């Protein structure tokens, strides 16, 4: 008996080393996998942030402007109406010529004018109209730099590279260097990025329309998908009889979750726009389409969360005389809520990043004015990223990364919200 016991002990001891070695190996593999994951994430973040950060600064040039009525091509006592149609572009151009009198040829002049953004004339107009007393004076004003000039000022252009390969030409570099030496350049935070709509000029383009659009679209998605999804999950899990029909429904919901999102876009186009004649490019349709796309995710995760609630809680509630509905809403759902919220927020995050179905329903339009309601045309952040990524100008490359940063910021916020809501529900 005791011999046997010792033999077993020896056997177990002999196997221990192997078992521990296996455990060690597994742990190292796990650590390596985690490390690899973090490495890739870090590279991605580093790349995006590195590219996107410069987009959050704007470059300005200090230009001496001759705002005489003559130069503006208006009467000295011009009214607002006349002032709004004054020749601001001409003023800026002539002022630039005055500052660089050596520029003579037409092509050189054109290059000179390209230092300043086309948006500068509207900015100047707004300033003059706000303060008509400026007419007839000379002013030194900070004007927004053109995106190409800005990219040189930000140090993104190597002046020693062949001239043909860069958009900022040698002459422009000379002028910019001169302005810089005169302390006539400055950079500031790019508020316009958040307050402006899309534009053909990179330095004027912003994500306001996309932000509004994303917000409205997601609001529609959430208001539709969350209640419907949770109700469907509760019904299927707690009330539906188990038979062929519910089995079929379950299989179909699982399959729906795997349907490519563009198919939902086609559906939205065919049903909501062509048949119901909802407006194109509108957050309403986008939201409905994304809701259809998110529903299976929400239903599946909610069902899993409800399923994982211990049946003893249901029995306890039924045992004191709660009706089935009360047992579900008072006891099962609160326990399942963290899981349901996590699933829903994952679904919403998917919807936030979705592009393809929205392209199908026309949310890819070039829109400059923020939507006021869910039926106004709008675009969304990922589509804006898509549009900008498609533009060749260097200025849009950094905008693309900056918009992605904003998008990721929202994703992080949504996850933080999920965690916060989880904590709150778990405390109760």
């Amino acid at each position: 008996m005791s011999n046997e016991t010792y033999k077993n002990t020896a056997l177990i001891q002999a196997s221990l080393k192997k078992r521990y070695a296996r455990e060690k190996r597994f742990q190292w593999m796990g650590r390596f996998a985690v490390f690899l994951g973090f490495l890739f994430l870090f590279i991605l973040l580093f790349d995006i942030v590195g590219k996107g950060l410069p987009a959050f600064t704007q470059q300005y040039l200090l230009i001496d402007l001759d705002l005489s009525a003559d130069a503006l091509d208006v009467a000295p006592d011009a009214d607002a109406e006349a002032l709004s149609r004054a020749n601001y572009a001409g003023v800026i151009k002539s002022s630039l010529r005055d500052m660089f009198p050596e520029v003579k040829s037409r092509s050189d002049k054109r290059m000179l004018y390209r230092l300043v953004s086309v948006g500068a004339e509207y900015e100047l107009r707004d300033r003059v109209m706000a303060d008509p007393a400026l007419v007839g004076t000379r002013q030194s004003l900070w004007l927004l730099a053109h995106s190409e000039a800005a990219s040189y000022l930000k140090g993104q252009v190597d002046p020693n590279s062949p001239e043909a390969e860069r958009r900022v030409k040698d002459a422009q570099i000379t002028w910019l260097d001169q302005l810089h030496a005169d302390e006539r350049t400055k950079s500031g935070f790019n508020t316009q990025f958040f307050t402006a709509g899309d534009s053909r000029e990179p330095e004027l383009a912003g994500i306001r329309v996309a932000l509004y659009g994303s917000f409205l679209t997601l609001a529609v998605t959430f208001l539709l998908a969350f209640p419907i999804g949770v109700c469907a999950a509760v019904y299927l899990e707690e009330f539906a009889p188990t038979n062929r029909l519910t089995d079929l429904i379950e299989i179909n919901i699982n399959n729906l979750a795997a349907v490519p999102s563009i198919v939902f876009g086609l559906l939205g186009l065919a049903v909501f726009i062509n048949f119901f004649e909802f407006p194109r490019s509108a957050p309403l349709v986008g939201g409905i389409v994304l809701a259809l796309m998110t529903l299976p995710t929400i239903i599946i995760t909610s069902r899993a969360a409800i399923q994982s609630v211990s049946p003893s809680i249901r029995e306890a509630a039924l045992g004191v005389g709660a009706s089935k509905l009360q047992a579900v809403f008072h006891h099962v759902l609160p326990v399942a809520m963290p899981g349901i919220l996590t699933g829903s927020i994952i679904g919403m995050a998917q919807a936030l990043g979705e592009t393809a179905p929205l392209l199908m329903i026309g949310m890819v339009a070039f829109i400059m004015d923020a939507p006021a309601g869910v039926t106004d045309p709008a675009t969304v952040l990922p589509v804006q990223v898509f549009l900008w990524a498609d533009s060749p100008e260097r200025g849009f490359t950094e905008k693309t990364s900056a918009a992605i940063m904003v998008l990721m910021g929202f994703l992080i916020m949504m996850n933080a919200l999920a965690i916060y809501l989880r904590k709150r529900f778990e405390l109760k």
Partner: protein
Amino acid sequence: MQGNDDMNQMKTADAAVPEEARGLDIHAHADVSNYETTGDPLLDNPKMSARNVNVYYGEKHAIMDVSLDIGGNEVIAMIGPSGCGKSTFLRCLNRMNDTIPICRVKGDIQLDGEDIYHSRQDTVLLRARVGMVFQKPNPFPKSIYENVAYGPRIHGLAHNKIEMDEIVENSLRRASLWEEVKDVLDKPGTGLSGGQQQRLCIARAIAVSPEVILMDEPCSALDPIATARIEELIDELKERFTIAIVTHSMQQAARVSQRTAYFHLGKLIEVGQTKQIFTNPQHELTENYITGRFG
């Protein structure tokens, strides 16, 4: 040698567990195919009565043709080896088995002369009248207060906060939990110890003042002091309520109950006055069980 001694000690320590693990095999006595319940399972004026109840879990026949009356203001103990169907039978009495899809209940069960399996019977009302304490403590993952207040609240038993506070305090006192939790009423009930949780569940059940209370091994997780308190509570409750209690402790059955029913493999073998069952069992199986010969 050392090892052998340890083994022997463990066996004696295990003696409280009347499982197959010990001594004789209960399945050796499994032939109960033609039997009639020994003793008289029927009463004159029963609170609840079960007639020819059969319960199936899918193919499995868990309760076989059980007829048993439960009198008003009596405590009836149900004993028997593990898996013999005590919980199943108890759960028939408030239709808790409805929640198990594969479970089918046949036969006739009445509460105050009304068929509780009638299609017009409201299970909500039934379960408010026939409360239950489950085998495993299952407090809600909410505050201790809310655990007790939940039943009275959904039934509208308290008209204001003061009345509710009173119900909660009374229930907790009677479950002898008040002193331990009176300062932490807002802490989650799931944070209590196993025994405290079970007393919380008892408080929750009595808070709605049911007419019948079904207790499924309410003391299996309690220490002797708390057990004694629960037994006192049962004594006190029987003034007003009817109690059916499942227990594995013969002493407990003897202490708290007036009548005892012995179940064996889904059959009701013997029913009688508790004293008679424990001093003079009529059926061989009953005798084997209470004398511990099943192990």
